[in-house]
Each structure stands twice: as structure tokens, then as C-alpha cells.
């Protein structure tokens, strides 16, 4: 009886251990979104960051449904990894595109040495309705 209870408990712990490991791998940069909404108007997004010396170049690309999207408001945040899953914003930019595709490139010079990523926040409008989506670039160091 004791052995059965022990085996059952071990199984349950293993199941949760797997789930937690995978879940942590997905949301290590931000707290998890408890209610992720479907992309209603957005079809694809990408974000890139590169360094040339201490000059960062950030690019964000957002593509919406051409039949629905009327406007895209893009916010780019250049953030430094300060450890413990925390990111420190050192610069941010905003631009509005009256189009269903937005390609936004910005640069920042004299960036201190460290590891960075670009967080792109897209507010994609269809008339007066909109959806907010945040994505991250691969990290880069300078």
C-alpha cells in the first residue's frame, strides 16, 4: 500500500516537473499572460537587433490582414538584460503607420556594453478596434 502511494506521488511530481520546466522556458522574459488572446488582425511579426560597435540598430516588422487593418502603432524598446529575468529599458521609440504593413528601423549610439534585446509592442487597429501584441528579438551583445 505504501509503495503504491509512493509510486503515485512520484508520477504526479514528475508530471508537474515537466510542465513547469517547459512553461518556465517559454516565459522567462516576462510574466506569463494568463489570458492570451488570438491574433485577430495581425498575421506575422518579427523583431531584430544588431550592434556595430556601440551603435544599436533595431528593426520591427508587423504585417496585418490587408482587408482589416487600418493602422499600426509601433513601440520599440531597447532593453538590457540585468539578470534574474529583469530587463532594463534604455531607449524607446514610437511611430504610427497608416498601412497594414509596418517596417520600422531605429538606431541608438553610445550603448553601454551588455546584453540587449528589442521588445516590439504593436497596436494593430481595425477601425476603432485594436489588439496589442508584444514580441522580442533574439538577444545581442555589444
Amino acid at each position, binding site marked *: 500500500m505504501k509503495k503504491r502511494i509512493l509510486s503515485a506521488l512520484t508520477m504526479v511530481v514528475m508530471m508537474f516537473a515537466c510542465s513547469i520546466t517547459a512553461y518556465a522556458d*517559454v516565459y522567462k522574459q516576462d510574466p506569463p499572460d494568463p489570458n492570451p488572446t488570438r491574433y485577430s488582425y*495581425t498575421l506575422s511579426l*518579427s523583431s531584430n537587433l544588431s550592434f556595430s560597435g556601440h551603435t544599436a*540598430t533595431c528593426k520591427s516588422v508587423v504585417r496585418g490582414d490587408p482587408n482589416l487593418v487600418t493602422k499600426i502603432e509601433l513601440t520599440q524598446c531597447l532593453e538590457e538584460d540585468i539578470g534574474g529575468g529583469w530587463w532594463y529599458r534604455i531607449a524607446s521609440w514610437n511611430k504610427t503607420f497608416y*498601412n497594414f*504593413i509596418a517596417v520600422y528601423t531605429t538606431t541608438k549610439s553610445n550603448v553601454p556594453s551588455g546584453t540587449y534585446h528589442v521588445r516590439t509592442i504593436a497596436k494593430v487597429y481595425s477601425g476603432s478596434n485594436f489588439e496589442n501584441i508584444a514580441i522580442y528579438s*533574439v538577444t545581442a551583445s555589444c
Partner: protein
Amino acid sequence: MQCNEKFLRALEEVYDEQFDEYMSSIENRQPHEFSAQHEKKMEKLIKLREKPYYRFVCTAGRRAACIIIAVIIFAAAAMSVKAVRKAVFRFFTSIFSNHIVVSACCDPDAETPGKVLEEYCITDLPEGFELTQSGRTDDSVTIVYNRSDKYVMFEQCTKQAFRMYIDNEYTKSEECCAANGVKYSVYSKDASSTIIWDNGTYIFGVTSNLDKNDALELCKSTKLKK
């Protein structure tokens, strides 16, 4: 105590001399001899029991069943989380509840550039398309062409920097192999399609609302910029 007395009284009632003689006849019988076959089997079993691996052999079936159940539980636990990673051809696809994230498989033994050293372009763009937007970093290029209600977006990226988020509601994914041996991963939804491929050095993407076959022809026409 009362129960015992009742039992004894009941036993006395059913007990009689005939029963007593019958029981005696049983006791006087010759002791039972087991067959030679049975004795052989018993000896074999006793010898096997003395072996050091007896316990392991006896529990082999149960161990196998436990391992199979553990594998099923692990697989089910992995599939039940929001993100499931799987390698799709040359790309990793992370599947979330509302989107997928496509990134490139980077072979640690292969040397691929960390920057876009040679820029590529679509050479067979249909007439009427004009460049409307573009953006560049050291490791990626994005160019958008428009013609009335049609658009073509061409992207080139290093393998390390490539990461694309794609809406996965009603999006179909498939692979097309061209005569030149290149494998194209196609993600299509309604009239739009995103086609990505790896030429060994860079990752390319052509996104458009053209016919899928026309879009594939554009991909095949991608060449080094002169």
C-alpha cells in the same frame, strides 16, 4: 464466548459415527506422491529462485509496463503545456495557443555569418510593383513592394537572428520541394502566404497575397544582388 458455545453445540449435533469413520479412512490413506513431471518442475523452480537475478526476471513485465507508462506520462505532460517545440525541417517551430514562433536550426559545426555580408533580392518581380518600405540591421533586411492591392515582402536574415511570429488560427503549414532541391516551408492563411527557406547561409522569406505558385516562383528567382 457465547458464539463459541453455540458453535460447539452445533458441531456436536452434526457429528456422528459415520462421519468419524470416514475421517479415519482418509487419515489411513497412503501419503500423496507427486508425479515425476511435477517434481521436475518444482526442482527447476527452486533452482531458479536461488539464482541472484530471479527477482529481476520475475518483475521484468512490471518494469516494462512502468517504463511505458512513464514515457506516456512524460509525453502527455510535454504536450499539455502551451509551448511545444518540434524541429520542422530546417526550422524550429514553437507552438503557442495563439501563435507560432519559427526560428532557424543552427548547426554548431557549420560556420554561418553573423551579419548579412551579401544581399539577395527577388529578380523576377512582376511588373508594376514598387518599393514602398525597407529596413535593415546588420543581420537582417526587409523590403516591401506594393502594386495596388497586392504586396510582396522580401526578408533576408542570418540564421542566429531569425525569429518570426506567425498567427496560427486557420493557418496551414506545408513543405514544398523545388527542382533545385530547396525545401520551402509555406504558411498560408486566406489569400496570404509566407514562404521561408534556408540556402545554407541565410534564411529568406517571401510574404505576399499573390497566388501561392506565383509566390513560389518569386522565391526561386531570389539571387545575389549585383
